[in-house]
């Protein structure tokens, strides 16, 4: 595993465009959870878009340079952490290419006028939690999740793309973390089926049946809600579902922060299109 034994107190943090805007509740709740756990997240100074699917489709070189600019801004002495699986993928893919192509590395270093660390470790928030270990999580537990039945929805990217295989697997980890906090994960659902990605904007007709299928599988498994670590998945599952009754879709960080005792959840949950508060009240997690 890259970067094992790294100091996990100070982390550079790459929010990405979604967490910075449409999924701000995910950003805020993650910051809060991190603070309770004693992590010091330092936002990457003047970060830009990770390259995104769209840029990668239209112009691979521009997309690559966009990802590399972020790498050039990251201080080499602390890990770079991302929450969005797609951002993580693009950053890691670019880093991998720099390792394989020394001349590209030199050209990019000259372009940005900054050195780029090949030893930088690029990790997902889940990996930080896993490395912190169960003891730290249980110490922080304030609100036991009281058997909240959830489907851990990983989406397609978190552990899948072949070029990321050198990275860690996160399969099962979201379920593991929330189990420690008193939740009940239900895996017999479509936990890795793609949410529709950008087709949600341009071809909603193809995405709606798919999202309904994912939600139907969660209901069939007996779930009360879905928990995902991807902001795009969260949005697509909420806006493209035409199935009733609608299940709340949580950002992983929201549930985590809630269990760790965060107080300002009201502001996160009012931003949801499917109000999760009745469920949480029924479970006596919030008043």
């Amino acid at each position, binding site marked *: 595993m890259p970067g094992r034994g790294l100091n996990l107190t100070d982390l550079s943090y790459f929010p990405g465009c979604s967490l910075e805007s449409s999924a701000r509740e995910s950003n805020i709740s993650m910051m809060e959870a991190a603070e309770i756990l004693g992590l010091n997240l330092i936002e990457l100074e003047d970060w830009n878009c990770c390259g995104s699917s769209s840029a990668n489709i239209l112009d691979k070189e521009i997309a690559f340079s966009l990802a590399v600019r972020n790498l050039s801004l990251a201080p080499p002495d602390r890990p770079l952490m991302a929450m969005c699986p797609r951002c993580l993928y693009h950053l890691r893919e670019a880093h991998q290419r720099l390792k394989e192509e020394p001349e590209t590395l030199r050209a990019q270093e000259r372009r940005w006028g900054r050195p780029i660390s090949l030893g930088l470790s690029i990790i997902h928030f889940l990996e930080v939690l896993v490395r912190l270990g169960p003891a730290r999580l249980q110490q922080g537990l304030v609100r036991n999740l009281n058997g909240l039945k959830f489907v851990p929805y990983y989406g397609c990217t978190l552990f899948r793309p072949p070029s990321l295989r050198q990275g860690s697997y996160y399969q099962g980890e979201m379920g593991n973390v929330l189990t420690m906090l008193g939740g009940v994960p239900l895996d017999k659902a479509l936990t890795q089926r793609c949410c529709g990605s950008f087709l949600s904007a341009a*071809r*909603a007709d193809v995405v709606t049946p798919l999202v309904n299928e994912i939600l139907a599988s969660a209901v069939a498994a007996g779930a009360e809600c879905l928990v995902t670590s991807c902001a795009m998945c969260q949005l697509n599952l909420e806006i493209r579902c035409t199935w009733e009754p609608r299940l709340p879709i949580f950002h992983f960080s929201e549930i985590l922060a809630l269990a760790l005792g965060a107080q300002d959840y009201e502001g996160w949950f009012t931003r*949801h299109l499917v109000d999760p508060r009745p469920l949480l009240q029924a479970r006596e997690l919030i008043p």
Partner: protein
Amino acid sequence: MNPPAPALNLRGAASPIVLAEQDRYLARDIERLSRANLSRCFHCRSCGNGCPFIRGMDYPPNGIIRLVQYGLRRQALESHTIWICVGCHTCSVQCPMGIDIAAIMATLRRLALAEGAMIAETNILDFHREVLQSIKQYGRAHKLGIMLRYKARVRQWFADLDVGLRMLAKRKMDLKASRVKAIGEITRLFIPHWKR
């Protein structure tokens, strides 16, 4: 959970394949560019059976591989399939022969753009263009701006209006774009090298 993938449905299959139109180098080129060994494909159709978006495609993923193997360049580059594919890698993980089908799709999209092929899914392409435009302008993707310009481009103001309004009401789309301070570093990327 998917309906079974339709049998390989070559458009115009009733008309014979014209050998003179075949591109003998296509398969070789795609293999080199995508680093996927498509001659290993034995058309088991696992890829199509797992693909979440098969409903919106004209050829199943292995149908695209077939087109490439046959050297039917125009049909492959002008297919809907390559644009509907979101690169979720479900197929690449499922393929028993370890073929990275998603990489083949990405390569074909790139070729289609480079060669000025007819693009079957113009709306999808327009959407990607608006995202890139936003990145060029702000260094970050600004959702509201992207959606407004996209709607103007495809002239479908009222499709999805309810979803858009609900997102605005929940402040899921910011009016003001968040932007990179050193924006010059970003915009420079978009200037063709011969103009710099």
